[in-house]
């Protein structure tokens, strides 16, 4: 157990415990806050995997963007007098069976497959080579992603601004 391992276990436990909090919390606001810590834990795991650019992107986009969106959604869809935003669960027993089967299968496959492991040193900084890849090998998916983001955001605005009772044109 060196320092790297200790940090890894700390981030892994933070991530998994927060994810358990997200999934099992009875209060949707607590679940949103647990999701915040889960995202931070995943960002720490990215740092341990020498993916600095993705880690920063994760914090900026997930914590700064998606989580804020989710919290807005929570606030706009729960009634003001309903402080304890309790929401039920359904199909717990089939869910446990399915999730157990999926997790068992995944972990079994992960453990038994002889993955090819390289001995390359990790990249010292990834932003520059990622930028080069995005502009050369992945330029078509990159442009498609930009168009998709534009379409999705315009569509989201149009869907969300439709007033109650009005017919879509």
């Amino acid at each position, binding site marked *: *157990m060196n320092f*790297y*391992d200790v940090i*890894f276990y700390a981030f*892994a436990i933070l991530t*998994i415990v927060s*994810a358990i909090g*997200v*999934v099992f919390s009875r209060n949707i606001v607590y*679940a*949103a806050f647990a*999701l915040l810590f*889960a*995202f931070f834990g*995943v960002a720490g*795991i*990215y740092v341990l*995997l020498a*993916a600095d650019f*993705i880690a920063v992107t*994760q914090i900026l*986009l*997930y914590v700064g*963007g998606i989580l804020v*969106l*989710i919290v807005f959604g929570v606030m*706009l*869809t729960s009634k003001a007098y309903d402080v304890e935003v309790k*929401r*039920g*669960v*359904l*199909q*717990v027993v*089939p*869910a446990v069976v399915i*999730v*157990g089967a*999926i*997790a068992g299968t*995944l*972990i079994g496959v*992960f*453990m038994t497959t002889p*993955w*090819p*492991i*390289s001995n390359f040193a*990790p990249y010292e900084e990834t932003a520059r080579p*990622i930028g080069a*890849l*995005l502009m050369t090998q992945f330029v078509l*998916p990159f442009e498609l992603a930009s168009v*998709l*983001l534009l379409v*999705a*955001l315009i569509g*989201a605005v149009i869907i*969300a601004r439709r007033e*109650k009772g009005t017919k879509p044109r």
Partner: protein
Amino acid sequence: MMTLHVGLYHFLIVSAMLFALGIYGVITRKNAIMVLMGIELILNSANINFIAFTRFGLMNLTGQVVAIFVIILAAAEAAILLAIVLNVFQQLNTVNVDEVDKLKN
């Protein structure tokens, strides 16, 4: 092999646990926003796999680029889903996925 020393397998197992928890959230939750949180957990677990294979596997930086695309798609998906949820809440006054069954009647 599986040792206490952190290698590829540890990251894969963390990702598998995160994936299973996300699936559990998607299946059991009634609230549509909680379902969205489960989906975000699933996407994060997939990203951990991509980046772990970038670090340990034989695919240079491709995994990280794919992870960026996954994050972009997650952002677009969250925006669309929240717009739909807000609209459903305006129309039906609920966001529970089991109560939105207007098409049945």
